[in-house]
Structure formats: structure tokens, C-alpha cells
């Protein structure tokens, strides 16, 4: 055994590097405890309590700033990159919690475990985003996944929810096994799981000759591809998204995807260059197939939740375009896009949650008839989010796509860019189809009456709209932030 000398500064660094996570975990436990002591009509406090925790964590993230803090013998690193994704994930979480204020009561999720699961999952996400060791990444992945499995099936009396949970769980475990095996093979090929060391070994194609390493990278990619739902690993997505309580769907589509991409971007930026001639075409094909399959599958769909699920697959494909480009610009674009995506997608789900009276049938597109004019603000908001998802100016979605495709063009992937833009043209059809139902169709019978959002909920929607618009019109600051966070990754 090797004796490790006790170094208090290292301990402090370790604690500092996971301070936001620690705050979240403490909050989670607090919420769980508080639940025991709160009467039924006081449960609303849980939500705000969780929110406070998330905001505190967010504050802590900014207190730590983009300075580089390595903790736990290099297993976790808090830096600009982590900060960016922590921001995305925590914002998504905060938005979801804000929306929960108007949602939990009727959805039956006004429970301590619901919130603490969300917080736990968020913790996993932060770890995943900051993990600099394959092991941390795996731990983060599982920490975020296991609560999500439960959350998907949270309304366990609903058949679709529980079915979605089962599918997500079984396939999630299956996918995680692939990732793990990939890690094992990489470990077998290199003898280490530390990413900086792996970078050192693989740089300049040093490991490109090792089949073991290549297979490991491939399986690792499969694991990530599953989590961010790339074709052909995407199949769980529509089912799980449709089955899950909508709030959870929103959370999954925004936060889980961001966290998984965080780890993927890290791996892609650091390890893929060493094997780029091999893995480049794979990424290219994955990107194209993913966006195409996602988009065309959504065309004929009538369940709005499912439409957005397929759309989220397609968006994963777009983001992959940035990774295919493989340079700084591409990664920055991916980062920026993930941020925008979180806001616009949560926004879209947020509006839909108000309109739908119940899960499952409530999300039939026909329920949207006549909503647009009867409830102009809701209509305008949903339209804004859809327009942004479709990538039309002057929204953040457009800037994001512009950014992604510009990375592709810059690196010579003209065809990828063309396929990408054609895909986004096809996607217009189903996004606009929702608009068609909201505005163009005359309602048959009564127009459904949306729920009146409480203050927090409205605030969340406004925040989403504001961010989408601001990123569309004055994206400068966030672009700089994305740029710096990717740069910090390479340091």
C-alpha cells in the first residue's frame, strides 16, 4: 500500500471542487427531511426550498468562477467548462422547479422525494460535467440516471409512465454497460482512466493503432450516444419522454442532454483528436442519421410531447455537427446551442403543461385548436419557442444553428451543413404544424382552458422567452462565455 500523506490544502481543494454538488446533496436531504414535518397544505414549501438550494449552488458555481480547481486526485475539475455546464444544468433545474410550483399539485408530485430526486440527479449532472476521470464520469452518469428512472415512473398509477420508466431503465442500464465496457477496454489498453493521462497517451495518434483502445472509444461513444439519444441508440427517447410526467420530460430533454453532452464534448475535444481519422466518419454519419431520423419521424406525429421528443433527437444531431467539426468553434457552438436549447425546450414544455388538462391524451395536437387567439400570450410564447427550435431569426435557436453550421462549413463539412439546413427546413413542417393548430384551425367545440400559471411559473416562462430572444439578438456575452469555457477545457 502506498501511504498517502495527508494534505489539508488538497482536501480543501477537493471540497471546493464539489461545493455546488455538496450544496445540492444537502438540500436534497433537507427536503426529504422537511417533507416528514410538513402538513399537506405546506408542501409547497418543498419546491421553494429546493429552488433555494439550486440557486445557492448556482451562486457557489459563480463564486468558484472559471478558475481551475482540481480535486480528488484529478478525478474532478472545476473550471470554466464545468462552470458553463453547471450554469446550463442548474438553470434548467431552477426553471423546472419554478414550473413545479404550478404543476406538482395537480400532477401528484408534491412530494419531498420528487424534489430530492431532481436535486440528486442534478448533482449527478454536475459531476458528469466536471468529471476528468472515466470513473467520475460513470459515477456522475449513474447518479443522474437512477433518480431519473424513478422520476419517469413517478406517477406510478399511470401505465404509460411506468412503461416509459421500465424501458428507460432497462435500456439505460444496457447502454451504461456498453459505456462501462468501453471504459474497461480503454483501461485495458492504457492502464489508466484519467483523462489527462489518456490525452497525453493518445495525442498525435499515439493510440490509434490499438484495436483495444479504438473499440473502447467506440463503446464509450455508444454509451454517450445512448444518453444524448443519437440514432440508432435513440429509441427509448420518444417512449420515455412521452411516458414521463411532462415536467420530468422537460428536465430530461434539457438538463440530462446537456450533462451527457458535457462529458461527450470533453471526451470528444480531448480524446477524439487522437483517433480522428477513424472516428470522424462515425460521428458524421451519426449526426446526419440522427437529425434526419429525428426530424422525419416527427412529421406525422400527433402527440405534441412525442413531437418534441423526436425534435430533441434531431437537435442532438445538430449538436453533433459541432462535434464533427471538431475544432474550438464547433465545441463552442455545441455549448451555446445546449444553453439555448435548454431554455427553448423547457419553455415549450412549460407552455404545453399549462394547456394540457391531463397526461397522455392531453397532449394530442388537436387540443391546441384555437388556443393562439384565445390566449394570446401563451400562443405567442409557444410560437416563439417553436420558432426558435426551428432556427428562425431573431431567436437564440437561429444563432445556435448558425454557429453550428458555420463550424461545419469552416472545417470543410459543406455537405454536412447542407444536410443540416435541409433538415431544419423539414423540421419547420412539424413545428409550424403546432402553430397551424393553435392559430389556423377553427376549434371544434370549446377551446380548452389552460391553467393559470402562478407567479413562479410565469416567471420561468418569461425567463425562457427572454433568454431565447436575448440570445437571438445580442448573443455576444454568451458567445464569449462559451469560447472561454472551451478554451479552459484545453488548458
Amino acid at each position, binding site marked *: 500500500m502506498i501511504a498517502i500523506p495527508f494534505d489539508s490544502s488538497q482536501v480543501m481543494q477537493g471540497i471546493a471542487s464539489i461545493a455546488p454538488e455538496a450544496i445540492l446533496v444537502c438540500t436534497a436531504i433537507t427536503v426529504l427531511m422537511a417533507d416528514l414535518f410538513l402538513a399537506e397544505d405546506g408542501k409547497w414549501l418543498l419546491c421553494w426550498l429546493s429552488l433555494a438550494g439550486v440557486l445557492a449552488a448556482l451562486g457557489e458555481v459563480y463564486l468558484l468562477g472559471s478558475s481551475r480547481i482540481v480535486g480528488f486526485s484529478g478525478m474532478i475539475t472545476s473550471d470554466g467548462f464545468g462552470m458553463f455546464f453547471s450554469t446550463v444544468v442548474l438553470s434548467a433545474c431552477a426553471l423546472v422547479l419554478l414550473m413545479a410550483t404550478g404543476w406538482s399539485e395537480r400532477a401528484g408530485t408534491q412530494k419531498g422525494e420528487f424534489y430530492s430526486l431532481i436535486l440528486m440527479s442534478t448533482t449527478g449532472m454536475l459531476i458528469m460535467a466536471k468529471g476528468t476521470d472515466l470513473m467520475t464520469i460513470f459515477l456522475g452518469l449513474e447518479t443522474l440516471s437512477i433518480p431519473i428512472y424513478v422520476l419517469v415512473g413517478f406517477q406510478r398509477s399511470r401505465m404509460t409512465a411506468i412503461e416509459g420508466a421500465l424501458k428507460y431503465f432497462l435500456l439505460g442500464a444496457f447502454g451504461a454497460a456498453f459505456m462501462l465496457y468501453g471504459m474497461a477496454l480503454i483501461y485495458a489498453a492504457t492502464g489508466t482512466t484519467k483523462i489527462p493521462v489518456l490525452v497525453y497517451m493518445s495525442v498525435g495518434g499515439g493510440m490509434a493503432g490499438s484495436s483495444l483502445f479504438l473499440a473502447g472509444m467506440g463503446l464509450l461513444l455508444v454509451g454517450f450516444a445512448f444518453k444524448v439519444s443519437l440514432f440508432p441508440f435513440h429509441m427509448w427517447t420518444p417512449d420515455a419522454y412521452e411516458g414521463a410526467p411532462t415536467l420530468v420530460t422537460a428536465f430530461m430533454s434539457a438538463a440530462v442532454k446537456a450533462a451527457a453532452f458535457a462529458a461527450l464534448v470533453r471526451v470528444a475535444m480531448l480524446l477524439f483528436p487522437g483517433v480522428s481519422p477513424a472516428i470522424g466518419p462515425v460521428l458524421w454519419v451519426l449526426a446526419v442519421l440522427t437529425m434526419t431520423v429525428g426530424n422525419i419521424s416527427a412529421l406525422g406525429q400527433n402527440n405534441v410531447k412525442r413531437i418534441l421528443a423526436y425534435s430533441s433527437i434531431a437537435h442532438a444531431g445538430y449538436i453533433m455537427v459541432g462535434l464533427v467539426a471538431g475544432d474550438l468553434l464547433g465545441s463552442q457552438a455545441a455549448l451555446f446551442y445546449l444553453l439555448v436549447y435548454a431554455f427553448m425546450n423547457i419553455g415549450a414544455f412549460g407552455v404545453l403543461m399549462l394547456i394540457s388538462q391531463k397526461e397522455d391524451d392531453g397532449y394530442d395536437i388537436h387540443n391546441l385548436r384555437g388556443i393562439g387567439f384565445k390566449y394570446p400570450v401563451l400562443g405567442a410564447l409557444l410560437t416563439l419557442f417553436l420558432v426558435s427550435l426551428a432556427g428562425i431569426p*431573431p431567436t437564440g435557436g437561429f444563432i445556435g444553428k448558425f454557429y453550428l*453550421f458555420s463550424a461545419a*462549413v469552416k472545417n470543410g463539412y459543406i455537405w454536412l451543413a447542407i444536410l443540416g439546413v*435541409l433538415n431544419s427546413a423539414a423540421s419547420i413542417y412539424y413545428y409550424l404544424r403546432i402553430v*397551424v393548430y393553435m392559430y389556423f384551425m377553427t376549434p371544434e367545440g370549446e377551446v380548452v382552458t389552460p391553467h393559470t400559471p402562478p407567479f413562479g411559473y410565469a416567471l420561468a416562462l418569461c425567463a425562457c422567452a427572454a433568454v431565447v430572444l436575448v440570445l437571438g439578438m445580442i448573443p455576444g456575452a454568451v458567445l464569449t462565455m462559451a469560447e472561454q469555457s472551451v478554451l479552459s477545457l484545453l488548458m
Partner: protein
Amino acid sequence: MTASPNLMSNILTILIFLPLAGAFVLFFLPKENGRAIKHFTLLVTLVEFVLSVPVLLNFDGATAAMQFTQKVPWIPQFGIGYNVGVDGISLWLLMLTTFIMPIAILSTYAAVEKHVKEFMIFMLLLEVGMVGVFLAIDLFLFYIFWELVLIPMYFLIGVWGGERRIYAAVKFFIYTFVGSVLMLVAILALYFYNYKVTGVYTTELSALYNLNIPVKMQFWMFLAFGLAFAFKVPMFPFHTWLPDAHVEAPTAGSVILAAVLLKMGTYGFLRLAMPLFPVATFDLMPFVTGLAVIGIIYGALVAMVQKDIKKLVAYSSVSHLGFVMLGLFALNLQGIEGGILQMINHGISTGALFLGVGIIYERSHTRQISDFGGIAKIVPLFTLTFMLVTFSSIGLPGLNGFVGEFLIMLGAFKTSPIAVVFAASGVIFAAVYMLWMCQRVLFGKLTNAHKLHLTDMNFREIAYMAPLVLFIFWIGVYPDPFLRKMDATVNAYVQQIHAKHQSALAASPAGETLLARYFDVRK
């Protein structure tokens, strides 16, 4: 005109964002009072027009440079700036837009009853996009405004349109969107090429104009840009969205669509595709000219056999825009000035035609030619106006259409005489389809009078037709002021693209075929 210098230096920005401010205010007005909303919108568009007049008056026709420019860094990371300016090419399109908007608004007073507030908001947003497109001198900014126009128009067709409005709206949107996203890729390629050559990231047009892009790259970029614009113009064979969109759109929508939106396509060719890629422009000229001529004849022939008045006018637009394209690709002064003037003419004449169709549609709720007949008897003033507009549309000398068409054909005759021979036959067909339609609608025995409920034009309708009629005569009789404002710009423009083409030719091997130049195909 003594406007305060401060106002004048910001005038273009004000012009772009005034309608946006109007839309914003409108959003908070109570929706119940439709009348007030209409008045307010009319006021906004009128103020917009009044503000645009000083631009015209202070515009210096003696220089080719951009005027009233304003330049603000916008996304400095990408080198994207908020750059606006106006020159002899965009000046009249700007004026056309601000001029036609109040007219379109006025035409909605009786036609739009439901969701007035939303309608007006979309109209104002539309104006933001249109004015922006014509004033932007930054590629990225141009693209933003270009896309911005889609959404309001989509709603105008989809919500306030006719029976098949959803099909038409979606078709309109996706058709034009497909074109414009391809342009986006080309924009990106151009942007990075510029970076590669100059080391500067910028989307400023004046910088990009100076590039000497390799010919093969020009070819593909021209195709990408050209496709986007060809969809919008629309050029044969990409025109099929237009009849549907026109037929289904509400009157005001049709007017704007015909008068301004289509011009965005031709303007795009003029502002971007041609000066940026001059070699490809010259090489592809026969091809584009051919399509333009086919469009002229095809549009006319198909218009002739239409049963729906609006559809007929829509196809006539295909034909007229073919003329504009023919003029632009004459690549000489006469052709281009004629093309620009014809854009304005088409805006006025076809706008007026759609307004006319709207007037009788509002009363009779039909647009089928066969439902009418002999209505000249009961609506003489309308008949007079409509005939006048008809003759303007078929290019009768003394009215506006002729000046444009003549210059276009004159110019194009220099470069492609055969094309003009065919195009001139379009002039014949134009007379056939328009007069035949007029005959069946206006003349003959009055058959359906009791069903049509027609009454002659009222004061409001006279009020919005009158300015159009005025310009029909003005441009027809005294086009000089219109042409003089564009002289310097177009002159410099023509010289520049010719010079760039010449220098590129000098660089390429003698006797090089196009196949060899673009596809490396050697004999």
C-alpha cells in the same frame, strides 16, 4: 428639406424599428376596439412613410456610395455588424415599401374583421423585415431580415386566408425557407473564405464585394444564393407556391406579397448574387435569362387560362418578374435600371390589381371570372380604375409599365437578342390574358347583378387607389426623377461587375469552356 442632422443620421434605423415599436404598442392595446387599432396602424405606417420622404429628398443621386449609413458592432465575435445604408438600388424599393404599407392597411378596413390586432401586429412586423432587407448592407443582417419576413406572412396567409390557406401558408414557408437555408450555407462559406483571404471575420458587404472568389466557388455560391432568390422571385420553375399563396392570402397580404416580398428576390440577385459572384453571373447569364424568358411566356400562358382572378394576377406576376430578371441579367445600364424601375412598377400595378380584386371580392365573395360579367355598368368608377391598372400592367406607353419593360428589353436586346424576341411575345400574351379577363369580368351583359351585391368604390377605396394611379401616370409620363436617382449607383455597379468579370477572364486560360471551368471536364 431641412431635417435635423441628428434625425437624418439615424433615419434608417428609425425606419427599420418604428414599425416594431408600433407593433409593440399594439400588443398592449385592447383587442376589442378594432377601429382604433386600424387607425393606429395606419398612423404608424403613415409616419413611416413621411419619415422615409426625407431620405428620398436628401438622397444624393450623384454618388454611387451608400448613404445615411450607420454602423454599429453587433456580434463582434463573428465580425457581424448592424450596418445599414441606402443607395440608388435600394432607395426606390424602400420608398415602395413605405408607400404601399399605408395603402395595404387602408384596404383592410372593411376586409379584416377577426383578430384585427394580431393582423396589424403582423403587418407591422412584416414592414420591419421588408425595410430591413432593403437597408441592410451586412450579409448576416440581411439574412436575419430576410427570414424575419417569413413568419408574419405565414400568419397572414394562414389565419386570414381563404379555404386552402393552411396548405398555401405551409407551402409558402417551406418553399422559401428551403431556398434561404441553402443561402445560409453559402453565406457561411463566403464568410470563411473571406477570413481565409483577409484574415478578418466580417459579414460587411462592402468588404465582401472586394473579394476575388475562385470561379468554381463562385459557381456553387451563385447557385445557392440564386436558388434562394429564385424561390422568392419566383422564377420558373420554382413559382408554384405563388399562385397558392396569392389566392389564399387576404387582400392586404397579396398586395404586400406582390408589391414588396417578391422584390426581395430580385433585389437579392442585384445586391448579393450578382456583384459577389460576377464571373458566375456572366457565365450563367444565358441560363438565368432563359428561365426568365420561359417564366415570362409560361406565366402569361398559364395566366390566360385561369378561372380565378387572383390566380390570374398571380401568374401574371410570374411573367412580370421574368421581365425584371431579364433586365437585371442584361448586365447593362438600361437593363438594370429598367429592372429596378419595373420592380417598382410591378409593385404599384400588381398591388393595385390585387386591391381591385379585393374590392369586388369584399362585396361579392367570389373571385371566379365566370361569376362576373358586365359589371362595368354598375361599377363604372371601379371599371375605369381597374382598366387603367390593367393597361399599366400590360405596358401601355404613357403608363408606368411601359418605361420599365422597354428599358429591360432594350437592355437585354444588347446581350441576348433571341431572349428578347421571345420576351416581347410575352407582351402580346399579357394583352391577351388581361384584356380577356377584363372583358369577361367587366364587359358584356350584366348577368349576375343580384348575386354580386356590387357597389362602386367608396371614398376610402378611392383614397387608396388614387396615389397608385398617380404614380402609374407619373412614372409613365415623367420617369426622369426615378431614373436619375439610380444612375450613379447603377453605373458604378455595371462597371464594377464588368471589370471583375474581365479581370477573371484574363486570369483564366483562353478558350476555356464552362464545363472545364466549373467541372474540370476537358475535351
